[in-house]
């Protein structure tokens, strides 16, 4: 088809598959952090996003995000995938349908990220409703602002792969969700340890792998911006990992594995918005620098009352924020062909980025707060205390992650 490039298409097909894999990867990563009795529930929150958010995206959210509409929100022109076919969108060299599906995987993983704030206690049905509404009213709106022709795009904000709608949105929404759903009953009274650190490590590996599609594909072609973004997605997390090792050493003379896995995520997060805008050596610097605030917050948070259980705020919210601001300083036209930051003579860019931070954090925090308040009016957000003690795998799903035959007596439903 005219205007389509097979190489670009090939790369975005792959990128889409890679981003899709991030969601099971996240399920694994998160499942490792919880206690054995909540393993399946935690993974299921990610799997649910793959189901419900995809359908939500097709039905309405994609349209609200990417149909022209106004400065605040898109229209309904693409609802039910209307007009989403093979002809490329303006300025793109891949089929519109591929763009749609690539973006769908972003919506999915972002919704799945929210689960990190509420594991081990949120009612599964309430979570399902929450992510559907959140995708429509928070995610699609923020996407429209930065990528769909909304006011942040108009302003000149740079966000390569989702510092605004993915990272800051999930992080600050997680904060609100943790406040409204409340802490786990055992929080700060008992040691709530990751039941399987290998899940965490392998999950981090899969996330990093998928992130090459997340950032690398955000150039929507196999051209220079994608290659730059791709390379930076190796370099920045490597730097974060290195600095995290040093911070761990400084604290306790021992490098932790959970810390290493966390560093991978923080590194990938911080480079997400900046990936296609800054040079590789600055990406290394960004990766290293971003380790510090996230590290500090993640170490400090468990001493507070805020049971934002898997630190989505610390890893994604803060990591994304640092990345967004960093662009304002170190963006470089020689690398990105688009805009310079403060250090390269264009201080106004930092202001734009700062506005994006304000807008994204406020909107997502407030939006999530309102949505959960509303859902809370129709159903309890949490499971019963007794269920929380027994674990959500058994009570919400009627299953155990590691079932053993002993003691399980077969029920023959039809009296066979």
């Amino acid at each position, binding site marked *: 088809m005219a205007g389509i490039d097979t190489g670009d298409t090939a790369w975005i097909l792959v990128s889409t598959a890679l981003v899709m894999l991030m969601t099971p990867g996240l399920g694994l990563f998160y499942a490792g952090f919880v206690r054995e009795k909540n393993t399946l529930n935690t993974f299921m929150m990610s799997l649910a996003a793959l189901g419900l958010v995809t359908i939500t995206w097709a039905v309405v959210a994609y349209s609200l995000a990417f149909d022209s509409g106004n400065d605040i929100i898109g229209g309904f022109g693409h609802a039910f995938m209307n007009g989403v076919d093979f002809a490329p969108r303006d300025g793109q060299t891949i089929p519109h349908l591929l763009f749609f599906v690539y973006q769908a995987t972003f919506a999915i993983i972002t919704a799945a990220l929210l689960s990190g704030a509420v594991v081990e206690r949120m009612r599964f049905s309430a979570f399902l409703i929450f992510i559907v509404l959140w995708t429509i009213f928070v995610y699609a709106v923020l996407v429209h602002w930065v990528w769909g022709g909304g006011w942040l795009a108009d302003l000149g904000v740079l966000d390569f792969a989702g510092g605004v709608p993915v990272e800051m949105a999930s992080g600050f929404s997680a904060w609100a969700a943790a406040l409204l759903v409340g802490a786990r009953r*055992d929080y700060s009274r*008992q*040691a709530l340890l990751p039941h399987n650190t290998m899940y965490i490590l392998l999950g981090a590996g899969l996330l990093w792998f998928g992130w090459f599609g997340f950032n690398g594909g955000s150039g929507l072609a196999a051209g220079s911006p994608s290659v730059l973004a791709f390379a930076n997605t190796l370099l920045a997390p490597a730097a974060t990992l290195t600095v995290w090792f040093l911070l761990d050493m400084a604290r306790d003379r021992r490098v932790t594995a959970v810390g290493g896995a966390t560093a991978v995520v923080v590194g990938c997060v911080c480079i997400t918005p900046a990936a296609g805008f800054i040079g590789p050596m600055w990406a290394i610097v960004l990766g290293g620098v971003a380790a510090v605030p996230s590290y500090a917050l993640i170490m400090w948070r468990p001493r507070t009352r805020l049971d934002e259980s898997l630190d989505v705020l610390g890893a994604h919210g803060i990591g994304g924020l640092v990345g967004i601001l960093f662009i304002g300083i170190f963006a470089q036209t020689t690398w990105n062909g688009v805009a310079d930051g403060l250090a390269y003579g264009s201080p106004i860019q930092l202001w734009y980025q700062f506005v994006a931070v304000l807008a994204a954090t406020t909107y997502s925090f407030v939006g999530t707060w309102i949505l959960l308040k509303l859902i809370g009016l129709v159903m309890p957000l949490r499971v019963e205390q007794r269920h929380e*003690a027994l674990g959500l795998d*058994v009570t919400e799903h*009627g*299953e*155990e992650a590691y*079932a053993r035959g*002993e*003691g*399980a*007596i*077969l*029920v023959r*439903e039809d009296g066979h």
Partner: protein
Amino acid sequence: MKLVIGIVRPEKANDVLESLYRNNIRGLSLSRVQGHGGETERVETYRGTTVKVGLEDKVRFEIAVSEDFLDQTIDSIVEGGRTGEVGDGKIFVVPLERAVRIRTGEADQLAVTPIDGAQ
């Protein structure tokens, strides 16, 4: 000497431990068991297979004590392990005829008293 076996909820295991330590009972072993008692059964489904599971996870303490420490030990477990709901568990006391410390070969009373902070 007695061997005290205490079966408690896993989520209370730490409280039991803390309460035992507070009472200077510092030698003990514990393991994970599954118990059946007065608790209700639960139903689980895996594809078309439905099963009734009547077992709950519990933690089993095994503590050898000299006569003088017996009541203290029982009290510590009760105190740390009680929630007041069905399923809190049981304590069993069995006579203990001999105790030997493997490291030294010491027998009886001495063997049930741990060496403080030694290394």
